[in-house]
């Protein structure tokens, strides 16, 4: 197998909060020992609900923030050992598309300005024809280069965000909920565009989403996170879930088919606070399969056959849970 593009080892990130007059500062572990490998050309999905640490993980991998401990190798380069200047060179090779195309574009920049910026930060000018080519690539008309964000629709803005990410011909693009603020009809257009760009340019994607249905459609491999830790890695989009949390996520996604109405015995309770994690499995309080052991002891991520799961009572293959 070719050298993986990303190797993340035991990433941990702690945040401190509060600590003011009379208040004791609290610490939380946003990411608790996550290891992850992404091969070149792969689309890896990271799913989980708000607060599960998926965006923090993405920022750690891009080294937009530094890990409290752990290591990220990008194409074999340890990002933690790079100086500022070297890091800048590596940055050209990895980019990000943000969730909200309304706030991630400067309202006073025209589209051409937006697309020149990735060059300008390195003190360069875009090569002739590059901006027109980028607009073509994402399906925006060339004469839109002079438009401001407020003149664009939501879908067009997200296309502009994607064009900006493509500007320096990166190898890795982190897509952080790129369609969450778009209408479904536009979401499907954007997913289509991302698929064809990946095919044409050989890109590697890290696709972050709370929408398991979308992730199962778009990704080759799926990492499920709960409260800062990976609970399951599904080796293929169609894999049957083994972790009860993944099962619950699937059950919470409603199919557009009234014949499949679910009598939800769904999850009770809500995600515990990351500031006050229970001992044992973080999911135990909401889990229909939890036992005494789960409340005492935290299960490790184990992968006997390439399908990793962190659970003492995983769902057996073929069982209908």
């Amino acid at each position, binding site marked *: 197998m070719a050298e993986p593009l990303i190797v993340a080892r035991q990433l941990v990130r702690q945040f401190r909060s509060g600590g003011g007059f009379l208040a004791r500062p609290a610490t939380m572990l946003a990411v608790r020992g996550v290891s992850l490998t992404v091969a070149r050309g792969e689309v890896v999905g990271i799913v989980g609900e*708000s607060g599960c640490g998926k965006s923090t993980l993405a920022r750690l991998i891009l080294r937009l923030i530094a890990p409290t401990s752990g290591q990220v190798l990008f194409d074999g380069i340890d990002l933690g050992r790079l100086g500022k200047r070297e890091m800048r060179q590596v940055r050209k090779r990895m980019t990000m598309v943000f969730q909200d195309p309304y706030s991630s574009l400067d309202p006073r920049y025209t589209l051409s300005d937006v697309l020149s910026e990735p060059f300008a930060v390195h003190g360069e000018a875009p090569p002739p024809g590059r901006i027109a080519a980028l607009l073509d690539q994402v399906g925006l008309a060339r004469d839109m280069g002079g438009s401001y964000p407020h003149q664009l629709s939501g879908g067009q803005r997200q296309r502009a965000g994607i064009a900006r990410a493509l500007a320096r011909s990166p190898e890795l693009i982190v897509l952080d909920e790129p369609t969450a603020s778009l209408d479904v009809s536009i979401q499907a257009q954007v997913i*289509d565009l991302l698929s064809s760009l990946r095919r044409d340019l050989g890109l590697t994607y890290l696709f972050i989403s*709370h929408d398991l249905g979308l992730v199962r*459609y778009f990704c080759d491999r799926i990492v499920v996170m709960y409260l800062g830790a990976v609970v399951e890695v599904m080796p293929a989009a169609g894999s049957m879930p083994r972790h009860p949390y993944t099962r619950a*996520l699937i059950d*919470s996604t*409603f199919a557009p088919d*009234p014949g499949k109405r679910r009598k939800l015995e769904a*999850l009770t309770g809500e995600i515990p606070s990351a500031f006050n994690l229970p001992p044992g499995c973080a999911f135990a309080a909401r889990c229909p399969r939890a036992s005494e052991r789960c409340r005492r002891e935290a299960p490790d991520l184990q992968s006997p056959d390439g399908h990793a799961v962190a659970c003492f009572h995983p769902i057996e293959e073929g069982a209908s849970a």
Partner: protein
Amino acid sequence: MLLSVEDLSVHIGVINPLSDLSFGVDRGQILGLVGESGSGKSLTAMAVMGLLPLIGGRISAGRILFDGTDLAKLPEAALRGYRGRRIALVTQNPMTALDPVVRVGRQVDVMGRMHLGLSADEARRRTIELLTRLRIPEAQAVCEAYPHQLSGGMKQRIVIAIALAGEPDLIVADEPTTALDVTVQAQIIHLLGELVRDRGLGMLLITHDMGVVAQVCDQVAVLYAGRLAESRPAEALFEHPLHPYTSALIGCIPRDGMAPGSLHGIAGAVPSVARYPAGCRFHPRCPRAGEICARQTPELTELTGAGRLACHFPLEGTHG
């Protein structure tokens, strides 16, 4: 029919964002109002709640019959007897729907005191009952909490409790779960469905999510650019959508086992109010559009089975 909207048109100044809208909601039923952003869903909610004057809008034609009374003709003072009391609103964002500096118990109490004339003690007793029914654990303690101390799902339950506290007949829920996580969304959607059936309420559920509609709605009305495209019983609509727009909307949702590349968006975007095209407003994006679609607005016709449809070239099925 608990709520019957007939040929409703709305004007804001000279623009006409909503025209000829008709639908009905029965007791014990959920009507889903769906469409992309900009289709006029929330405007419909505001019209039903009598809140259009807040945004400088007015009902320019049609009726909103609620339990036999035409709300469109009532003056503001009379509407107050309905709003919160007989028709309640659940909004999208529980973070902004609650008052951050008032304990949540009091925010629920005030509805019972104002609308039902209860004493403080009675109102609190009912609040605790209500929160318990909404499966809020330790309701008594939660009453003493401020909104920021509660999770998103818990806050949305409080918003629902406020809506129910006036003992309304109709609930207008505008994207009630859009701001919530999926597992919490599933809980809330089921809770709403249960309430409607157990209490015989009517509900107008506004959402962009066809999955949510398929899960709980009895009837579905599909809006496009301020006009009704198709309105039919949920099962029939999902099984055999007649309007190409309905079919396209359903096709936008990824399903298990879908082959890569089989998810199709709808080309283009919803036109803005100022640029509604002539003829059928969907025709520039419609794969079935013919020459007549650009010229002539398709009339909203009653279907032989049940429901209504406005399309010159519907997909196979019963028509007319």
